[in-house]
């Protein structure tokens, strides 16, 4: 292929890429692809098992091959997005210079051809050019517009405009869309998400990422405390975790996080994501009553495997804990990690060397039996060990996304609710020497309503001309028309 033909081909591709039709087709394709992604089960979210149940192996293999089980991360979806971005950029580049000229070099004085072809125009007969111009100026000033004198001495015309910036609105919207996409790309490439579960007083600098790899943090995070608050009906109202950030062993930041209110440090955000029981005992408060002397009672706070003295000769400690007790066959098992039917085994030891094993069932006090131990026990309070689950996210691109969203809101308001309106007022005279004021107007949208406004304006100028006598003074803010 010679260079001329390949150049022509390139031109052709270029033209196709930047056309609105291509843009619309891409919008439709993206819509269809997205819909497909919601109708077919998607890989990262669905368990492989569920996918295997839903589709037969051959179909699943094909779906996988075509990227249909992970549409939003497949190469062709990314390609579609890239093409759309390219289309927006090229289409904007093609049209932007015109809009920019509109913006930077307003058309101040209409030429004869423009005057002849402008759809919205009217002539009002006047006796004197300056008088007509001044009447028009007064009307515009009264309506809150700023008329601008254009021309040279003795040959004046008026230019009045509002919201010139509306010409740039579509570019603001499209630029904001690109900004959002850019933020998304940054996060897709450099961002990551992970999860970490911490028990009380546990600290770590290793996070398990979504993709299974491990992420080392440049600092350490510690869970000081965490908890759950409930509504009266038992449904959770609030989860919270007290977090401390440590750098080189020094505390640098403390924060109580809750759902909707993460901790942010060095661009990393830690979210309260889950809270639950570890199935272990954290603290047990028991009331011990001496078997021989019921008036002698001791309230003891027990922590796992730490003996506590009840009197000079007797100690007690927790040796086993089952959160949800059940006996299957001959074995003690637990049904869950929740303290639904806790069972506690205590070991009472005497200095004489005697030991007694005591089983406590707080839910079924009658089943508790102390054998012939020197004390009987009643459970007063039971605190379970818990973990707090934290989502960790690093999204360096999110600020571009939010900036893009704000910019898009602004751009759309400009697009739909700002109209670039222009008026030109030029004194003209016909071949018979009759003087008239030529008034032309144009609006970038809402033309029907603008027509009505134009008519009202004409009435006002006519009234003004009829009512007032002119003052032949040239205002000082007159400008010279550009060549």
């Amino acid at each position, binding site marked *: 292929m010679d260079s001329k033909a390949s150049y022509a081909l390139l031109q052709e591709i270029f033209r196709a890429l930047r056309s609105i039709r291509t843009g619309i087709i891409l919008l439709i394709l993206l819509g269809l692809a997205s819909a497909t992604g919601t109708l077919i089960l998607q890989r990262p979210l669905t368990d492989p098992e569920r996918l295997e149940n839903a589709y037969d192996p051959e179909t699943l293999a094909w779906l996988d091959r075509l990227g249909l089980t992970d549409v939003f991360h497949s190469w062709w979806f990314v390609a579609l997005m890239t093409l759309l971005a390219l289309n927006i950029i090229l289409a904007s580049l093609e049209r932007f210079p015109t809009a920019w000229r509109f913006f930077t070099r307003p058309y101040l004085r209409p030429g004869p051809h423009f005057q002849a072809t402008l759809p919205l125009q009217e002539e009002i007969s006047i006796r004197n050019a300056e008088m007509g111009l001044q009447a028009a100026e007064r009307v515009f000033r009264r309506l809150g517009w700023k008329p601008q004198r254009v021309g040279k001495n003795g040959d004046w015309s008026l230019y009045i405009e509002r919201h010139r910036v509306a010409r740039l609105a579509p570019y603001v919207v499209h630029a904001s869309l690109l900004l959002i996409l850019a933020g998304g790309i940054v996060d897709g490439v450099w961002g990551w998400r992970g999860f970490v579960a911490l028990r009380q007083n546990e600290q770590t600098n290793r996070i398990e990422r979504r993709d299974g790899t491990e992420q080392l943090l440049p600092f350490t995070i510690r869970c000081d405390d965490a908890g759950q608050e409930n509504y009266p009906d038992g449904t959770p109202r609030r989860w919270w975790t007290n977090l401390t950030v440590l750098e080189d062993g020094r505390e640098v930041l403390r924060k109580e996080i809750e759902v909707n209110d993460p901790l942010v440090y060095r661009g990393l955000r830690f979210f309260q994501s889950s809270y639950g029981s570890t199935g272990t005992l954290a603290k047990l408060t028991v009331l011990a009553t001496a078997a021989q002397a019921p008036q002698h009672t001791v309230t003891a706070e027990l922590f796992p495997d730490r003996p506590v003295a009840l009197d000079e000769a007797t100690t007690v400690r927790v040796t086993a804990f089952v959160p949800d007790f059940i006996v299957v066959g001959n074995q003690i098992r637990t049904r869950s990690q929740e303290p639904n039917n806790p069972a506690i085994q205590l070991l009472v030891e005497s200095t004489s060397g005697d030991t007694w094993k005591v089983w406590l069932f707080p839910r079924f006090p009658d089943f508790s039996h102390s054998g012939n131990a020197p004390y009987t026990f009643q459970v007063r309070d039971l605190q379970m060990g818990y973990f707090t689950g934290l989502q960790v996210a690093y*999204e360096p691109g999110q600020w571009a996304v939010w900036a893009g969203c704000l910019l*898009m*809101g602004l751009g759309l*308001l400009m697009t739909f609710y700002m109209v670039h309106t222009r008026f030109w007022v030029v004194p003209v005279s016909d071949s018979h020497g009759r003087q008239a004021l030529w008034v032309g107007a144009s609006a970038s949208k809402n033309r029907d309503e603008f*027509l009505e406004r134009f008519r009202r304006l004409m009435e006002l100028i006519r009234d003004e001309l009829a009512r007032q006598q002119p003052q032949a003074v040239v205002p000082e803010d007159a400008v010279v028309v550009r060549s």
Partner: protein
Amino acid sequence: MSCGAEVHKGGIMGRTTTVIEVGPTRNTLLVLVSLAALLLLLTPLFSVLQGGAVFTEANLLYGALVFYGAAMALYLGFALVGNERYVRFASAATWAGFVLNTLAAGHRWYIAGRPPFANLYEMLLSVVWTLALLTLFVERRYGVRVIGTVTMPLAVLGVLLMQLMPSEVRPLVPALQSTWLHIHVTLAMLGYAACAVSFALALMFLIQDQVRTETFLAATSGLVATIYLGIASRFDASGGLRVAAWDVNAGREIFIARGEPLMVVLPGLGWMFFLVLVAVLTPLGLYLWAVWNKQESLLPWANRAFLIGLLVQGFGLAAFVLRAREGMYASPQAAGLFPTSLSASPFLLTGMVSSIAASLLYLLLWWRREALERMLPSAETLDRLIYKSIGIAFPLLTLMIAAGAYWANRTWGSYWSWDPKETWALITWLVYAGYLHMRITRGWRGRRAALFAIVGFAVVLFTFFGVTYLLPGLHAYA
């Protein structure tokens, strides 16, 4: 005395205004509706006065229902006979219903200590409120007086549906306690309401654009048939209809596994709805046959079949209400008999009632097309209004998506996760973006643009209802 209609054409913008003068004898409907409303309001009032509490949410909602019902009757009456006075009273009734609706929503807001957006009941409360507000606004600002003919039946339907739903104030789970959620939902509702208005305007445009009445027949039949196809998919092998069982004491469905509700079979109703499906498919079939074979003479038969279909739909609804209201039925999943209730099948019921409402609207068009054409704004004005309403809807949808993303980011640490609701919100946005580009840069006007607006609203409906009930995702709260 006959109703003399006089049309003033003109105005600077070429807007068509219609003035219809009506004699004093045409007030029968007004009297009837007022009497019915009065009766409906007074009967429970005595028992309420004895009981003490007057301004409870249920009472306020009942009052709103009565007024919305009166407004619906009067708007429909206006559309039928063109009596100007009906509209004034209809507006007044809408206002009254709107005030009561506001009080009910405000009451709930006060009790719950948060805006009423947390479950389907509260969403409907707010949606109906927005609908009434928009009706009053569009009527006043743009003079589209027949808009109530479409929106008021929807409002009545919404309030009726609310009566079937669990209405107790439930506390919010932690993830939903966020100002951003309220902003997100408010924007969504306003945006979707604006889409609904653009849809209603697009339908009116098609009427003014001389689309054949029979085309509307085909479209209505198609919609109705789709709804009944959905209902008939609950057909049980025994000839019954599967509906969810209902735990009467707890006031909710019975689940046998996570996400798998216990179903019971209403005997005989499966065949009944199969019959309804055949009846509503017949006019569509006749229409297609007539168009295919170019036999114009068959078209009146399609209309007659449509009337029969409507009648059969009425029977179907009555049979369903009688059977599903209460009673014990066998279940294919477990031995024994289980209760059900109308509350267990709100969407089946909505489907039936809305297809009957859609059929009635078609009948209105069929019988009174000329009067409607005189009452509606010109096609040109409607075309512009469609564009304007989408011009309102599109920024709202954009900000709604942004607010939702911001909320998700604060809650889960991710602003976009391609869950079905998010994705469909994006698809909705893409459709309207397509509309705007077609209109602004390629100069699409008229019928194509109106059809685009209709497709857009269909996507909105799917995003709002379809995704929640057909596709699983994060938005599982409502």
